[in-house]
């Protein structure tokens, strides 16, 4: 992984495997138009020709995904050489992996933090926000009561009552989750400004650690809401 924020513009001096013309990060040779092998170590942002910024416009990203799909999909190479078919399969897979990651804000920032070495892949620290400890405790109590009431076959009024309380609690936590999302979005702006001004490592690191901490809270709340939803729909 490189420290650079935009691989798309980096000079590689690669030559096209077919005609030998100079190919930079492009997916196709500018001279003969042949599909090119993936650039070693190219990250998902660079694959889309984007800098490592976080505030992505969903519509634009989708448009770019569609454009690249039309060009890279294996259907386009059904009559091409075996080598080109393999390249198309590999690159179409990376394109889809990249889009799946970048389209979701949370997956996008997790991916960036992995690229930048702040988080390890798949590392999820679930952190209960300290100011919510009491409410979380209460919610878990309702959940346990609901399960117990169901097990005991209690009358529907008691179950309904617990359900209403849980639903209210869920709405509250969904609100908190939205607040955390907003916090994360604010960090996106901050990060993107940093990418443009390209300051010393310390400022970048601080912002990334802040985002990592928000992610931990986000992950905790998301799981909590999911558990409650599952229990309510059970």
């Amino acid at each position, binding site marked *: 992984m490189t420290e650079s924020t935009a691989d798309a513009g980096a000079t590689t001096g690669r030559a096209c495997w077919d005609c030998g013309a100079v190919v930079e990060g492009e997916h196709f040779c500018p001279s003969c138009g042949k599909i090119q092998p993936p650039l070693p170590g190219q990250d998902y942002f660079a694959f889309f020709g984007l800098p490592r910024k976080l505030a992505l416009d969903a519509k634009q990203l989708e448009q770019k995904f*569609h454009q690249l*799909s039309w060009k890279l999909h294996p259907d386009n190479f059904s009559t091409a050489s075996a080598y080109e078919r393999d390249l198309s399969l590999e690159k179409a897979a990376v394109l889809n992996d990249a*889009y799946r990651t970048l389209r979701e804000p949370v997956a996008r920032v997790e991916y960036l933090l992995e690229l930048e070495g702040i988080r390890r892949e798949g590392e999820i620290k679930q952190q209960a926000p300290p100011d919510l400890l009491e409410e979380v405790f209460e919610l878990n109590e309702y959940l346990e009561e609901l399960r117990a009431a169901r097990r005991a076959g209690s009358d529907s009024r008691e179950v309904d009552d617990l359900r209403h309380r849980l639903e209210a609690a869920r709405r509250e936590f969904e609100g908190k989750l939205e607040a955390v999302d907003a916090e994360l979005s604010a960090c996106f702006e901050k990060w993107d400004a940093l990418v443009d001004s390209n300051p010393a490592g310390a400022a970048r690191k601080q912002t990334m650690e802040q985002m990592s901490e928000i992610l931990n809270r986000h992950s905790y709340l998301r799981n909590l809401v999911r558990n409650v939803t599952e229990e309510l729909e059970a």
Partner: protein
Amino acid sequence: MGQIVGIDLGTTYSLVAYVEKTTGRPVCIADEAGRTLLPSVVSLDAGGSFVVGWPARERLLTQPERTVYSVKRLMGKGLADVEDELKLFHWRVAPGSDSVIRIALGEKVLTPPEISALILRELKQRAEKFFGEEVTQAVITVPAYFNDGQRQATKDAGRIAGLEVLRLVNEPTAASLAYGLDQRREGVVAVYDFGGGTFDISILKLKEGLFEVQATNGDTHLGGDDIDDLLLEQARAEIRARFQTDITAAEQVQDLRQRLIAAKHELSSAEQTAIRFAVPGKGSYERVLGRAEFESWIAPIVARTIGPCKLALKDAGVKPEEIDEVVLVGGSTRLPLVRRRVEEFFGRRPHTELNPDEVVALGAAVQADILATGVKDMLLLDVTPLSLGIETIGGAVAKIIPRNSTIPASATELFTTSVDNQTGVDIHVVQGERELVQDCRSLARFTLKIPPQPAGLPRVEVKFLIDANGILSVTARDLRTGEQQSVEVKPSYGLTDEEVERMILESIEYAEADFQQVQLIAARTEGENLLRATQKALAEEQAKQLAREERERIERAVAEVKEAMATQDYKLIRERLEELNQATYHLAEMLMDTAVQAALKGKRADEVNL
């Protein structure tokens, strides 16, 4: 490149289609009797030959022990998966069926891919007869919710039948291709595909020729077969109560089953139907079945389709009211109850103008055409229906490619060792949504080879790739040496490569018959052309100058060619054609001379009616 066909390999019926060059429209190819449907039924006759399709279906009644149907339900399955169904289906399972089911059919034992290959071969021959040339490449459809093993089994069937499977396309997606072709449709479409053995629901976004599947869900064990089985159980229970006898003999069960299927079909248009069945030695079971009673029986089966619909919508992030159009596919969508339930759930009237039996094959033909001609105005982006995971400590599953990811899709994982000089890491790949390995479908196991080194030092990168067919492949690379490592994956269910190779060899005797068939078609086509040309030449002005014996020789040769063409002997046809060629040699020369003279006078050859 020869013609590439699209094939719908269905539970109950199979079809083959192609795109007609002049109109650019997909068309199903019919058999000699004009039927496009081929029952997916295979029977072994007393002489050891296979009978496929309509005649095989008739043999269900007379030779049930030598006849199989609905074999698609067994594709990619092991014995433990289908034990419940075996009671109903009268398949006779042979020993050694743990990872691949082996069915005893008369004296032979066959796997589901081999049986499916016989159906594919029949369609292949139908297409070859139609085109007058060999067909070696096909696009075959599969239920969207088929897992890796079921897809691989379908691909194997194609190989055994002598077909290179250029692509497996999901059935609802294929249907959307045929559907979207009509008018340049845009928007969010739900395809509700309720067939003979499987149920699929797919949510697609259509935009400027791009067919992007947002989510898919389904049940590979839910279809018209289940309705038929339920009716059968109901009727058998009534017969037991009324006549104190159980219908168990295979011939009788099949007879009763087919009568009930006929009643089911009738109830799609009629309000009531009469069922009659002769109970051997006891009398006649007769009853009138009204639509309301029928619907009350089957309602629980139809209701089982709604859960997958909800999940698909949730995964696609779409509310029912945001669906622009609903398309019905599969024979079971002819049931009025199904149409009502779909309308209720999506809040809009579904499209029924497409023939629900043919639309999947037509879509497969469209995809075949895209692959053959590189048509660039339509593109399908499909998804993988199930999450791909690997086993971690304690039998838990780490998901590496989530369900509904656009395919091709990939994931790379880094592996190392936990003890010094460990030379292998065992990897177990599964598919499914549950947290524990035991609740997911085992796909394959393999051992990653590692050079002996201190623990934690080796770094082997394993890449899992799901291709555009939804089939997984695995490659490994030692990051320290950069060397690619071969990975020998042992599939948990299904045939090994060696087994498929052996089956291809075994099917060469059929391939020989295929070859003869193709030769016969080619010879007949050539014969027709030559006969036509000869008739035309004999009608020309110059032909009047032919000597009488010469004309008679030609007429004799024509009669002999016609006689030969009525036989199956392509060699004889070729011989007689050669004779006719020689007999018409002088005539052809005379016509040629006229053409040359005309050309010298500055006239175009076609103006002298050559």
